[in-house]
């Protein structure tokens, strides 16, 4: 009898423990969900401050440039928390899931340009119309940037942060040794107006190819740079996908595969470890260079190549990449979030972000501010990057975006061109593979 009660009691203890554990697990899950919207109870922390959360992918640089600190100094009752999701490829599906369920969202969510069209066309109802927000001035932004986040009914759901105006970064010393002009104006002149001229210069370069360095890093990079100078790329004006026979895609494909066939390309895949290592070892002389690429070069090429890289204008003005800030309707602190997003994307703040983080402003009003207009980068032999990139940004055509831009682009570079460059397939085989993968991706 005694034994029995004993086991009975210990049974109860175990049961209680299991229940506690289960409760712990459940609340653990619940915590996760709440993370994105800290302070669901009115959005205040213990000190009574309002916590505004910002969900981003990768390094957007607001924190690093001290903008959060500055904002909280101006608004002492606000606290800003940033949730970064890395790698960026995990960010977008999670954002969609959270939008679908209406929970777990941060007060401000960043959106990448490759996804902005899909968000604008399919999720517009779930975001705040920022065009009506106090202090937001449409004319501050580049026209095409503003248009990218504006839905058919005129609702603007994202405020532009950075853009990726195109230039060409090149190794001055290698150009000199190869007998090409090395001065940045002369280099810009060398290929002005046509990407084909860029390849021709490459053929001249390849005759000497100093130090065994290839002319450019990757066919994929060249492809992306070349397509982003056209207004219709993967979709036409009516929203129909034209990746199979769009002139911009075909032309860029030919350029990229020609570069590969004539051995101008180092055959790398951009942003991978081998690409970074090749930068560190000086294995290529040029790279298609949207503004955000400068940071990559500086970081991976390192001190060894300081002053040897320079920046010239791209053959055609183009834009590759960029981001937006948006505020979901389900945000806990919608009003404060709108205020913060407005402030972060105002020209003055974008100029500061450019100065500290080299994220190029999408607010054209910032281009005349001294931080941008007079900007020079010592690493790139004091290239006047402010001037070069603002010119490219202003001259870029309004790109027509489509919902699956990011996926289509990736399949062209990481399937099609990579097969040509790294698996010895012909240009034709690579094209077929890219089209087939894209057909499969877009098929409902």
């Amino acid at each position, binding site marked *: 009898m005694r034994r029995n009660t004993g086991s009975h009691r210990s049974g109860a203890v175990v049961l209680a423990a*299991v229940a506690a554990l289960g409760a712990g697990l459940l609340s653990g899950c619940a915590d996760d969900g709440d993370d994105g919207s800290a302070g669901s109870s009115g959005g205040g922390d213990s000190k009574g401050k309002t916590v505004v959360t910002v969900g981003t992918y990768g390094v957007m640089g607001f924190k690093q440039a001290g903008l959060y600190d500055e904002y909280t100094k101006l608004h002492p009752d606000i606290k800003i928390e940033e949730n970064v999701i890395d790698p960026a490829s995990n960010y977008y*599906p999670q954002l969609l899931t959270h939008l679908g369920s209406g929970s777990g969202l941060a007060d401000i969510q960043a959106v990448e340009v490759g996804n902005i069209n899909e968000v604008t066309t399919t999720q517009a109802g779930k975001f705040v119309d920022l065009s009506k927000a106090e202090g937001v001035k449409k004319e501050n932004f580049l026209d095409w940037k503003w248009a990218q986040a504006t839905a058919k009914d005129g609702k603007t759901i994202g405020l532009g942060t950075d853009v990726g105006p195109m230039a060409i970064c090149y190794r001055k010393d290698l150009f000199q040794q190869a007998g090409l002009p090395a001065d940045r104006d002369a280099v810009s002149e060398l290929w002005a107006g046509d990407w084909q001229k860029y390849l021709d210069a490459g053929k001249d370069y390849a005759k000497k190819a100093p130090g065994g360095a290839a002319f450019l890093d990757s066919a994929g990079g060249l492809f992306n740079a070349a397509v982003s100078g056209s207004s219709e790329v993967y979709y036409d004006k009516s929203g129909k996908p034209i990746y199979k026979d769009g002139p911009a895609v075909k032309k860029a494909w030919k350029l990229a595969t020609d570069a590969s066939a004539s051995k101008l390309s180092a055959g790398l895949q951009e942003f991978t470890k*081998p690409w970074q290592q090749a930068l560190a070892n000086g294995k290529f002389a040029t790279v298609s260079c949207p503004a955000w690429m400068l940071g990559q070069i500086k970081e991976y090429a390192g001190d060894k190549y300081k002053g040897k890289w320079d920046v010239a204008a791209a053959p055609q003005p183009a834009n590759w990449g960029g981001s937006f800030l948006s505020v979901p309707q389900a945000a806990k602190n919608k009003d404060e979030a709108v205020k913060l997003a407005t402030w972060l994307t105002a020209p003055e703040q974008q100029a500061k972000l450019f100065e500290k983080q080299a994220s190029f402003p999408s607010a054209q009003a910032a281009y005349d501010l001294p931080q941008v207009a007079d900007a020079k980068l010592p690493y790139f032999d004091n290239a006047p990057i402010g001037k070069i990139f603002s010119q490219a940004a202003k001259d870029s055509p309004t790109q027509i975006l489509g919902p699956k831009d990011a*996926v289509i682009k990736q399949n062209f570079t*990481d399937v099609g061109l990579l097969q040509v460059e790294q698996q010895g397939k012909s240009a034709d085989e690579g094209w077929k593979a890219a089209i087939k993968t894209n057909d499969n991706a877009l098929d409902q």
Partner: protein
Amino acid sequence: MTAPSGFTPDTAAPPAGQGGAAPRAATAPAPDPAEQRRRDRRSRRYRWDVRWSPYAFVAPFFVFFAAFGLFPLLYTGWASLHQVELTDPTHMEWAGWHNFSRLWEDEFFWKALRNTFTIGVISTVPQLMMALGIAHLLNYRLRASMFFRVAILTPYATSVAAATLVFALLFGRDYGMVNWSLGLVGLDGIDWQNGTWTSQIAVSTIVIWRWTGYNALIYLAAMQAVPNDLYESAALDGASRWKQFLHVTVPSLRPTILFTVVVSTIGATQLFGEPLLFNTAGTATGGADHQYQTLGLYMYEQGWVNLHLGRASAIAWTMFLILLLIAAANALFARRLRKSQ
């Protein structure tokens, strides 16, 4: 001669009034109804305890399983019959068997299935053989045997992500350590990522590295349960160590081997993290030519990159059905094995 009944009390029947249990009850303390109820309750509780407690103890698992296992499984099945996009997951459009029939003609699916199979074979077979060998060695009397046992388990304790990222570096084309070592012995470097076989071998290497120790420990535990007499008599019969291993150890381990084969097969069918992270670009294509894209990875690409949740669900269910088939084949095989013994 008759005696008066009064004189023969011994033989006389006891008076009715004093027979039965009643007089004893009268001498015992009167029954307390409250105590009685308590006793009843206790015995009832005891009966319930014995009867229902086991269910209560296993309930948490089943509750969690229902919430996080069964429900998703059924919901995935339901979703697989619809066209659902991640951009609007609540909007489901009936599609019938389209998602499944589409897979039938989907060359990427067949490629992923083939890759899953080949990677499964080249990772599972060497893995289990090596595990058996290692377990056999560890079964000898060794100095610091505990150290070795813990050491072989450490790969299992590392995260897939960490291990895979390191292996992706080791298998790098230009600056990887594997190619560097090949260069030392005068061989040309191999572009591990881009070849079909080379990439699959590289991915399998990661799997083998992570799981061999785990399986070795399971084998070791089973080996220690093999009675020593068997070895002694085998030794008396003049069997060498190798013969003992072949004819005593392996047959005794048969059920364990079957178990590890099943577990490894399930793991191989669901292989995902290694091929995803082995791609240094971090994309879900499994290489430029999908050369090492597994079913799990293809499901991920369809669901979370291309955002077709319905189709991803169909792939998930197909994987589940494949596993059921494997389980059935395995059960058949196991029964055969038992009968032959």
